[in-house]
């Protein structure tokens, strides 16, 4: 097991993916690459199948909501891990708030199944070709996606608790 450096990984990604990389930066100890939502599946497939990089393990899929980002309100974050090179990679794909949808990774990594269901449940992001895209942790008849920023954690009409005193 030889550890790869982020700069070596960035170089390999540049030659492998070329135009498909929108932006690439090193945040703390991890390389973060943005790709377009249409490319996400093919990029991850390339990274998984490439014999030198071999990102064999999907660590995590999650969503992030940026309501102030018009056209790029939702972000799907993929954490990949190459055990061969002992290096992690974060891939981001931004989606619009209107009808957000992205290709499912379930055909590449079976573990994506529940991770994508969770992301759908909490952010409303639709994963195309997912075998069973239903809510997982919340009840089935819930009519909103609770992790979106427009849903406040606490009841805004409460008067017994004044948030101004708590720096909120």
């Amino acid at each position: 097991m030889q550890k790869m450096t982020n700069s070596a990984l960035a170089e390999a990604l540049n030659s492998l993916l070329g135009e498909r990389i929108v932006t690439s930066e090193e945040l703390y100890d991890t390389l973060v690459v943005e790709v377009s939502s249409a490319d996400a599946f093919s990029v991850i497939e390339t990274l998984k199948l490439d014999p030198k990089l071999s990102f064999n393990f999907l660590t995590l899929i999650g969503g992030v909501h940026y309501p102030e980002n018009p056209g790029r309100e939702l972000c799907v974050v993929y954490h990949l891990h190459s055990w061969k090179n002992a290096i992690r990679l974060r891939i981001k794909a931004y989606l619009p708030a209107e009808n957000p949808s992205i290709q499912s990774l379930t055909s590449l990594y079976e573990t994506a199944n529940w991770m994508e269901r969770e992301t759908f449940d909490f952010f409303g992001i639709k994963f195309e070709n997912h075998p069973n895209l239903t809510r997982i942790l919340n009840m089935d008849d819930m009519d909103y996606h609770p992790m979106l920023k427009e849903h406040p954690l606490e009841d805004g009409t409460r008067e017994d608790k004044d948030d101004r005193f708590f720096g909120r």
Partner: protein
Amino acid sequence: MNANDNLIRLSNGQVLSKETIDGDIATINFGPTHPATHGIFQNILTVDGEKILNSVQTVGYIHRAFEKLAERRPYNQITPITDRLNYCSSPINNLGWHMTVEKLLQVKVPKRVDYMRVIIMELARIADHLICDSIIGVDTGALTSFFYPFSEREKIYELYEEMCGARLTTNMGRIGGFDKDFNPVFHAKLKEFIRTFPAAFEEWNGMLERNRIFMDRTKGAGPISAERALAYGFTGPNLRAAGVDYDVRVMHPYSSYEDFDFIIPVGVNGDTYDRFMVRQEEIRQSLRIIEQAYNNLPEGPFHAEVPEFFLPDKKDVYNNMEALIYHFKIIMGESEVPVGEVYHSVEGGNGELGYYLISDGGRSPYRLQFRRPCFIYYQAYPEMITGSNISDAVITLSSINVIAGELDA
């Protein structure tokens, strides 16, 4: 005769020929409040006599919206949330969270803190594995083997109490280190634990490891191959039982794990017996790590100099202006946090426990996502039990150590 008369359609859409069915097909609810599920989750099993044909899972019964809650709490108030993920080893969750924040703040903690953390985290791993392995005993009908390790687990909980006053949901440590150093009682109890635990452990282990009944029940129950385990995102002891030696402590060492000498046990068949054996060996290795860390415990401070996050001594708060200011900033959640995003993971009781933290510079995280190993590998459960007996499903469930708190967040 219609060709369809010979077919049976199951609730998951699967179609079987009647000739393959031995008895009557029945649907039974395994959970949500079944004594053998050790937590609240449901499996709707379709059974042919005793044989499981398929299983449909329902999770989320104790979902508590931790990720949403975290978006409104200052960083130090998120620690108690992490307690309630895998509550069998909450110190690992606490300290993993503190390390994540330290990574964001780019704080370097003193060597002594690293070693203290290693001692606490390995104690937590022992406690976690003791519970899991003793519960496999219960589910195979050996209740005595459940009670034996509890006296040892109690000693670990007493050590927690010395450090933080709590036992189960520990809220241990602070961002930057610990709120206090190991006290003399802790030292005495830890030395006693290191001295007496191996004999007590081996006595208990002797009840199960080569027990004919236990071996017959657990060997071949709920197996999963290395390829399938990897596809399902298994980590931790369950993956190692299938023969893959992935361990976060080795691949991405944190908290000075690179200083210690330990081996990663791996299994062969990925069945219940292998999972049991891997956990048992991990307990021995954890004790080795604790011994090494304790014997080489460096001198020095027990926390990093991060006054914006580390609460000052109470006597200073009354007499010292800076301490008073920092006290208020921490309590009111006004500490400055840099903008950035980090992913940090630790080897939890069940596998890679990760924290993906995005900060926008505000008082609480913009987004915090937990990588909860239970949630990720529990989706493989139907595949592991299909074709086996209900009794095997029970021990498979206990041997993969699904903790409802971690499953449902």
